[in-house]
């Protein structure tokens, strides 16, 4: 047995010198009824992974997390086979179908990458655009980049139009312009993604929680197509699930729109007060100008007390909103480190120059 004296330096020579700094990227894909597309998706991810390994960019696709969200087709078997074939693939199996956002959150909470890319399993979101999203993010100091469809995604005029209208209305009501950009093909800074995931609760719309951590969000136009519909299949979402999606977006939103009620209540109350004051003066100064007796006082009473009730309900909602924001996990503050972006920016600039 080799003897080591107390003065022997504890450097056994087995340590490794510091490896070149790499920016690690994780992908997260919630899977539901996606058996027909998974192999192709993994092939595309593998191709991207190999390209990055061969390139001089300091990028490494370290893992692809697939979340089996209670699939009823053979997605689970396909995923298990893919996991056996590729050591960079991890499969997370949920106990039942929880929905796209909970599944995405589950996957994000299994990542270790500096950046996390979420993409759907049905090839609507091609991995080859991940570098474009990353480039846009680091060049503009962003924390979240959404892929924005350059043309209608689902070839369903009604679905695309109603989605745009709904998000537009919410963006106006909540004064959050990024709502229009929300898309399930997103690049998120890893720390932010995991922080948002860790505060999300069961009815959370993930992107609304992200909005609470950062305002550095943008969208990048990309060609996205619903391959499932194009190949004659049905969309992964039923009308009911789309409505549920919309409901979740609404209740996860900032509660600014609740103040509309209290504002209307205040105005109504002030109107009632003003009208009552005017009528009182009229009664004292020029009673002969008053026509019907009794109607005015009734009207004043209704507007005043109705407005007061609306105002008090609005105040109650303000208190509730404080609790709601806490439940939704809106942080008091969040510290972020963007220093690694400089490395990728330099290399991208070099690549562009050469």
């Amino acid at each position: 047995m080799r003897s080591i004296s107390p003065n022997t330096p504890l450097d056994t020579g087995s340590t490794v010198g510091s490896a070149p700094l790499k920016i690690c990227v994780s992908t997260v894909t919630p899977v539901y009824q996606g058996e027909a597309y998974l192999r192709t998706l993994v092939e595309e991810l593998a191709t991207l992974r190999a390209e990055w390994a061969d390139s001089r960019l300091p990028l490494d696709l370290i893992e692809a997390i697939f979340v089996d969200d209670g699939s009823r087709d053979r997605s689970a078997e396909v995923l298990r086979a893919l996991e056996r074939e590729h050591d960079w693939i991890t499969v997370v199996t949920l106990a039942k179908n929880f929905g796209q956002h909970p599944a995405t959150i589950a996957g994000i909470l299994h990542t270790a990458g500096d950046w996390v890319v979420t993409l759907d399993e049905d090839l609507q979101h091609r991995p080859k655009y991940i570098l474009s999203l990353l480039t846009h993010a680091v060049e503009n100091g962003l924390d979240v980049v959404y892929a924005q469809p350059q043309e209608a995604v689902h070839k369903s005029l009604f679905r695309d139009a109603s989605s745009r209208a709904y998000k537009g209305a919410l963006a106006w009501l909540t004064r959050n312009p990024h709502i229009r950009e929300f898309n399930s093909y997103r690049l998120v800074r890893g720390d932010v993604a995991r922080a948002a995931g860790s505060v999300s609760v069961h009815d959370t719309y993930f992107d609304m929680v992200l909005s609470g951590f950062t305002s550095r969000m943008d969208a990048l136009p990309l060609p996205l197509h619903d391959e499932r519909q194009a190949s004659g299949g049905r969309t992964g979402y039923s009308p009911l699930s789309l409505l549920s999606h919309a409901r979740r977006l609404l209740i996860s939103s900032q509660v600014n729109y609740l103040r509309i009620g209290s504002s209307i209540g205040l105005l109504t109350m002030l109107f009632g007060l003003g009208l009552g004051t005017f009528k009182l003066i009229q009664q004292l100064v020029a009673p002969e100008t008053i026509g019907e007796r009794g109607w005015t006082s009734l009207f004043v009473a209704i507007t005043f007390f109705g407005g007061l009730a609306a105002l008090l309900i609005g105040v109650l909602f303000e208190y509730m909103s404080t609790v709601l924001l806490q439940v939704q996990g809106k942080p008091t503050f969040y510290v972020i480190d963007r220093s690694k972006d400089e490395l990728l920016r330099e290399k991208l600039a070099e690549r562009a120059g050469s």
Partner: protein
Amino acid sequence: MALFGVGLIGSAVRLALKREGRLEEQWMPLSWTDHDLQRAQLGSVERRMGEWAESRRARRLSFVWSAGQAGFSATADDTAQELRAFESILRMVGRIRRSHAEAAIDVSLVSSAGGLYEGQRRISPGAVPACCRPYGKLKLAQEELLRECTAATATRVFRPTTVYGRIRPGQRRGLIANLVLNGTRHCVTRMIGRTSALRDFVWADDVGSRISKMLLDGVPAVGHTTEILASGRPASIHEVQRLVERIVGHKVFVCFDPRLPNDADITVSPRSLPPGWRATALQVGVQQVYRDWLAGGRGSPSDSQPPQPHVGLGHAG
């Protein structure tokens, strides 16, 4: 069996063995600082183990090193003392081997994945340790000494990641225990490093159960194994803080100490986990910590153990 160190992991090993219902134990003091006294105390341990070997009551003599005063922020001097202590144990094993050539002897070392792989993410089965601090170098040195130990029939190295366990008086507490304890008391927890740092948290009882199972099963019978004991699921400090808040039911107060950097990520690929290993989910483990603390933090009567440092000698049969 001689169990050196009954801290977080050592006590988990001991409890797992006791749950099997086949453990008789006695405690012997072991000094860290007085080398002459330590030599004499090890002599007592050696004699006792020798008696068991001669009486043939023991099918195998097992030595488990889960001791350690040096933590993550230990200096080179702290770790040198610990390395010397470990060397003394291995020398003792060598003497027992020479006097009992026919005895089956195995030695297990509780190492540290965190110390060895600090800064590495998705640690794979073939990952090469890259120690950043004296603590990691200590563990690597201990592992090398163990591999070179020809006196043992079988050797095992366990590399747990960030271990968390029940709150016990007098025991060193990690992040989760501190958050739960301070959370229930509405006190401030000082956090070292950044909240986005990733760790792989593993429940001490899981580690204890795994080690005890391998001891009792005598696996491996011959040769060497190294296992990483982790959950395979990274969790940020931020996530842990929020989880503790949900469990204790109110805000947990924290402040940040930037002086001591401890913000490297350490995560493990699920593929690196040993066969048959099942890690308790973080939410469940933290709930256990909280419920145990609310119950008085005393655990069951059989949890009682003498204060540190001691050697536990046990016979499982």
